[in-house]
């Protein structure tokens, strides 16, 4: 019998040509190990640096419980005010997103390889995108409040400028991913470059555009609900005022309003996505959620183009206008609704577009005063601050990961023990995600006291919700066949999760973990503004005494560190995926 038909127990004496009995160390395995060791060392260092401890954690937990005791039940004595400010927050998000879309559009066309007029333009546009993404909106807002005074205006400009980073990037990606041939075809009929872009590139990228805008609106609502903390309008101001005057139950009332607002918006945007983009390919998010409460409420709109059985529409040979189908009606309706929303938003916060344009002048003036940056005056505290911010981000991501991996498994429909666990986990995630990180930070700081520990805990709390949702979504999309195979050999549920679910979901988990680290770093730079430690504190102080050149130095420091970490994360992602 040929020897290679025998099933041999693998042991170190068996030599198979080309296969080392020990697992071969391929280059990506080496990278993976180095990264893991480096991360572990970094987390341990960070843990010690911000003086986090298990006893401190338990004490902190007690403090938060204590505070929650004083917060419950929430009081709504100035509910009218809260609702008015809540709406203002919504309008701010709408206006901020509108500003960002208007500005992002040309920037994306300039930044996309296939539409840019010149490589130099591309470099500039990409630079703008990277810059505006790296500076958190709250920092923009804090600076603009100094230039424009307290109010809604600095807030919406901050939201707009910061959102260019994400919207511009995703728009440019969508443009780059369009099919080249239709454009070539339109060019070959003698169309100009712009005619070809409008007729062939824009329609292809449109679903991704819409999806991106909806996604960003969601994010901006969360952001605008905390802008009030630096005086840039919205409901955040009311919450902080309540906390300052120790009216904890009132503060929780305001947080409840924020939560309701954010959660409603999330449902609404999922529903709009489902009705408007069902069946379309998009870059952002799952375009057609198979299960969405919102989509069920709104019902699924009949998509003409999906129904091939539809009898051909009769064409009027005289006018040759598109028939007024359900789909066209729906699209027109949504388009009009968005226009109305934008107009209402501007009117409600009594902002006119002229005033907005004028404000950019002041913004530009304050920006120029940030230069040349002054690194010397506050050198030591800038260095200490940024190190503390990085440490907080590392610890928060680590703690968030510890919680979110099991939580994510429980919230994945195909892995969860049963429907009840699945449902409860998803509801829990909804709750965690419905409260912005910075608000959690403000509450934790009120309970525990100033310093990096409550800030880090707040970040960890937010991360666990955000990461668990991403992990759950990733796990729901894994291939079921290897799982069946594992069960078929008699594995238990936990064995099966370890041997087939986790390895399959690993790339997504690692990738999302790096993404979380990225986001946490940005957020940790602003924790100092509310007393949560890190570089934000120096920034806020320098702003208070109008040492704008120190602010410039802090900004450049934040940008550099955020950008370097982003590059590193991108590199690691590329190595292991």
């Amino acid at each position, binding site marked *: 019998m040929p020897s290679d038909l025998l099933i041999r127990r693998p042991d170190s004496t068996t030599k198979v040509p080309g296969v080392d009995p020990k697992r071969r160390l391929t280059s990506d395995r080496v990278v993976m190990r180095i990264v893991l060791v480096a991360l572990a060392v970094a987390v341990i260092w960070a843990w010690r640096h911000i003086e986090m401890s298990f006893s401190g954690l338990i004490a902190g937990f007690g403090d938060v419980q204590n505070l929650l005791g004083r917060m419950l039940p929430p009081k709504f004595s100035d509910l009218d005010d809260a609702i008015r400010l809540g709406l203002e927050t919504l309008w701010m998000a709408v206006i901020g997103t509108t500003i960002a879309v208007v500005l992002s559009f040309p920037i994306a066309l300039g930044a996309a390889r296939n539409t840019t007029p010149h490589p130099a333009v591309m470099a500039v546009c990409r630079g703008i995108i990277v810059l505006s993404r790296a500076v958190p909106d709250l920092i923009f807002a804090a600076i603009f409040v100094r230039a424009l005074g307290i109010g809604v205006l600095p807030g919406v400009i901050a939201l707009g400028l910061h959102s260019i980073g994400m919207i511009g990037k995703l728009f440019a990606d969508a443009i780059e991913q369009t099919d080249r041939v239709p454009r070539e075809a339109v060019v070959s009929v003698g169309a100009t470059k712009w005619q*070809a872009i409008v007729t062939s590139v824009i329609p292809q990228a449109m679903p991704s555009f819409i999806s991106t805008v909806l996604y960003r609106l969601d994010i901006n609502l969360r952001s605008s609900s905390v802008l009030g903390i630096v005086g840039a309008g919205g409901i955040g101001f009311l919450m902080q005022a309540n906390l300052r005057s120790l009216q904890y139950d009132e503060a929780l009332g305001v947080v409840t309003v924020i939560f309701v607002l954010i959660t409603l918006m999330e449902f609404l945007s999922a529903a709009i996505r489902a009705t408007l983009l069902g069946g379309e390919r998009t870059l952002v998010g799952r375009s057609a959620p198979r299960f969405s409460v919102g989509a069920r409420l709104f019902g699924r709109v009949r998509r003409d183009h999906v129904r091939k059985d539809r009898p051909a529409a009769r064409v009027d040979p005289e006018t040759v206008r598109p028939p007024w189908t359900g789909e066209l009606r729906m699209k027109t309706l949504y388009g009009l609704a968005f226009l109305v929303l934008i107009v209402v938003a501007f009117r409600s916060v009594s902002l006119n577009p002229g005033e907005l344009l004028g404000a950019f002048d002041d913004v530009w003036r304050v920006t120029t005063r940030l230069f040349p940056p002054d690194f010397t005056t506050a050198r030591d505290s800038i260095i200490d601050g940024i190190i503390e911010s990085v440490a907080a981000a590392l610890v928060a991501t680590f703690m968030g990961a510890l919680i979110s991996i099991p939580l994510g498994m429980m919230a994945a429909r195909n892995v969860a023990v049963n429907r009840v666990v699945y449902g409860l986990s998803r509801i829990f995630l909804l709750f965690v995600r419905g409260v912005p990180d910075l608000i959690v930070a403000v509450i934790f700081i009120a309970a525990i006291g100033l310093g990096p520990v409550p800030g880090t805990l707040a970040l960890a709390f937010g991360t666990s919700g955000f990461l668990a949702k991403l992990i759950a979504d990733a796990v729901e999309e894994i291939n079921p066949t290897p799982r069946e195979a594992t069960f078929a050999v008699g594995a238990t549920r936990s064995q099966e999760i370890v041997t087939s679910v986790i390895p399959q979901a690993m790339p997504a988990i690692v990738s999302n973990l790096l993404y979380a680290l990225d986001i946490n770093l940005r957020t940790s730079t602003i924790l100092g503004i509310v007393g949560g430690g890190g570089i934000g504190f120096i920034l806020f102080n320098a702003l208070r005494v109008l040492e704008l050149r120190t602010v410039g130095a802090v900004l450049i420091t934040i940008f550099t560190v955020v950008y370097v970490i982003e590059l590193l994360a991108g590199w690691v992602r590329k190595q292991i995926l």
Partner: protein
Amino acid sequence: MNVPQAETAVQVTELSKKFPNGPLALDRVSLTVPKGQLLSLIGLSGSGKSTLLRHLNGLIQPTAGSVDVLGTNVVTAGRRELRALRRNVGFVFQSFGLVGRLTALENVLSGSLGRLRGPRLGTITYPKALRREALDNLERVGLAAQAFQRADTLSGGQMQRVAIARTLMQRPSLLLADEPVASLDPESSAQVMDVLFRIVVEDQLTVICTLHQVELALGWAQRIVGLRDGQVVLDRAVDSLDQDEVMDVYRRVEPGQRSSQSIVDLQSPTSDRVA
């Protein structure tokens, strides 16, 4: 002798093209096409057919040589001149080049962009006269009923017919077709070629069409030009050709010089599609 005569549609002289980091895609190709001729370009994929075709409306600029199309020197033409030329040259792509999310009519309308100023998006942004013309052109390819159907819901054959209707909006005098039926099943292929042939005859167009189905080329064209490795290896009127001679283009020998090697190295034209 480089001056194109009145009856010449296309005059290509000593055309060479080298892509950056690529092989010589075209090697001193010369070709004169009189007006009204139906010419079929054949050859393996990578032989330079598509590259040659894309030179004719300036989608690609040559490394050396000259290209004269409908009295325009494509190599030296400025942007405006080139656009004026493209307006008169229809181009049909293997992968149709339709914008899937737009309706069939909108795709046809985009064929009139060369005649319009400014960008257009949506049927009603085009003048009514053009909308009627577009509908007529859809009618000519038998798809008027599908005018307001999204292009990506059409079958492959229907998509290519929409693409043909789009080039009709240009009222072209020269039609370039790059493997118009290579992505289609035999039945749709026949339909598309029928439509194309009828239009070409009715409108008295000059046609240069790359094809890899030799039977199609023989049944359809008046003249066949074979390319191999960027060089012209065959250029004959169809009535003086038989299928074997044409098949030689796909083999490793010069047409007409059959050797035993050709049997070993036999490459059927269908493998072109796979490759």
